[in-house]
């Protein structure tokens, strides 16, 4: 499709890109606003950045978001890679239904996933707390009561992250030469060595991209966190949501500008590294 676009179609694309970026641009500009309004410019200032770091609620939620995302991504990457290898080596009649179940959290509306986990946690913890009370009354034995919080948030994030890892590792496994593992074992590797030294490097790109997708999903998630975090934990998205119900502080503009900047820097870095690697590859080839 090498035919060139007309000016009109380019203009259309430009308009759509503008539509995508105008709100983000405004958000960034008004993070430097002196006043509290996000529509009236009162002069340049960095005061919201200063106040942001003083704000315990926002900083705590940033911290929770990062911790949950990092742990969930790491767990999901390991578990998802192992699961993908397991699935790949199964008979088709077992693999297909398992892959269908694996797809449920991705396909389902977020709110349904969130609500269903919320129900499960509420029922399980209700039963456990009832059991603890019963034990206290009858046997004077006690155990900690359980409530939704950081733990359930983490479980939820791991649950919706793993399918993405599996889905990006699976194609790499399918591309891999099946005889490579056999060859390694014939040449004296144990199956563990064959896995570490032969299979893992082959599927590494899939693992890395799965990890990136999982991390993005975790950072970006609001709905599932909202239903599973309980009253004690709050992610950044949840804090923002509760603020939009009352009054939004421009600190939010500041934190989103910082996050956006971080993503931009990360993307540029990855891009530069990639081109450098490609150049090196060309050189060695």
């Amino acid at each position, binding site marked *: 499709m090498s035919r060139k676009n007309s000016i009109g179609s380019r203009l259309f694309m430009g308009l759509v890109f503008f539509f995508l970026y105008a709100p983000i641009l405004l958000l960034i500009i008004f993070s430097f606003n002196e006043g509290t309004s996000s*529509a009236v410019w009162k002069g340049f200032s960095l005061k919201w950045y200063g106040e942001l770091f003083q704000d315990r609620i926002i900083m705590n939620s940033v911290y929770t978001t990062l911790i949950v995302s990092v742990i969930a991504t790491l767990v999901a990457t390991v*578990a998802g890679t192992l699961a*993908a290898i397991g699935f790949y080596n199964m008979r088709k009649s077992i693999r297909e239904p398992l892959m269908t179940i694996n797809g449920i959290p991705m396909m389902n*509306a977020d*709110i349904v996933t969130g609500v*269903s986990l919320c129900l499960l946690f509420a029922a399980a913890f209700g039963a456990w707390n009832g059991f603890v009370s019963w034990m206290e009354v009858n046997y004077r034995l006690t155990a900690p009561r359980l409530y939704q919080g950081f733990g359930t948030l983490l479980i939820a994030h791991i649950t919706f992250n793993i399918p993405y890892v599996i889905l990006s590792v699976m194609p790499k496994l399918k591309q891999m030469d099946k005889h490579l593992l056999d060859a390694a074992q014939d040449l004296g590797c144990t199956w563990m060595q064959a896995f570490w030294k032969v299979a893992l490097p082959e599927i590494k790109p899939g693992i890395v991209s799965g990890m990136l*997708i999982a991390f993005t999903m975790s950072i970006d998630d609001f709905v599932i966190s909202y239903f599973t975090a309980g009253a004690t934990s709050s992610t950044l998205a949840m804090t923002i949501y509760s603020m939009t119900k009352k009054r939004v502080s421009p600190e939010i503009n500041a934190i989103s500008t910082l996050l956006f900047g971080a*993503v931009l820097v990360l993307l540029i870095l990855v891009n530069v590294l990639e081109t450098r690697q490609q150049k090196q590859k060309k050189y060695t080839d």
Partner: protein
Amino acid sequence: MKKRNRLPLFAVPYVGWMALFVVAPILMVVLYAFTNAQAGFLFSPDGFTLDNFARMGSYAPVFLRSFQLAIVATLVCVLIGYPVAYFMAREGEQFQKMAMVIIMLPMWMNFLLRTYSWIAILDRNGFINQFCRAIGLFDLINGIFGTNLEYFQMLGTPGAVVLGMVYNYLPFMILPIYSVILKLDHSLLEAARDLGADSVSVFRRVIFPLSLPGILSGVTMVFVPSVSTFAISQMMGGGTQMMLGDLIELQFLGGAYNPYLGSAIALVMMVIVVICMYVMNRFGEGEEEAVML
């Protein structure tokens, strides 16, 4: 070669995890949806009920609004997203790479923030109204029609909710269509041209039909989150545009605490998703990649 049969065991922990945190929660939703709120437990006498579904009747306007807004938003996304994807695929490789980044980048910013930013644009004293005031549009309108207009009311209207959905989910429409168009077999287009088709009929009779799987997967990816959203409708609709998602949220975390009714609505939503997936699998094959984009 017996040793290799051990590898399926790698999946055992995750299969257990799925049973606990994917299958069990969904069974809970089904269980609650058919449970009588008074009895509280499905297996108690008169625990089973269809009341929860019957009660949804009183929320028919919410269902109607959800579907209307989601369908309109999906249509708008197709109308904007298809041309963008099509034009993108015609540009040079460098441009395509850049455009991909441009489209993906906003998705890295939390959707609540991006939606919140629209409030500042559409508000009573927001940018659009400020702009219209500055160029004297209101004076002009008031002068002609003798009205007393001071601002355009945009927030709190169905249009604002649709705008929020389109803004948030447009990339989900562009990307699958783009990846399908990019993979089109060029020899087919050449053959069509050689056989005398002009560019309009090449598009209408070759490109468009072949890109239908991409449109379908885009439609699913826009429609499902649109019909189930609750944050966008609350922010852009200002509480006046209640949707299915808001209704579910009210039953679980809001004032109208009733997880039985909430589960029934969630179950209906799951059925909608399954239907969407079924339609998509029927017509589009190999869409996994598009979804992964």
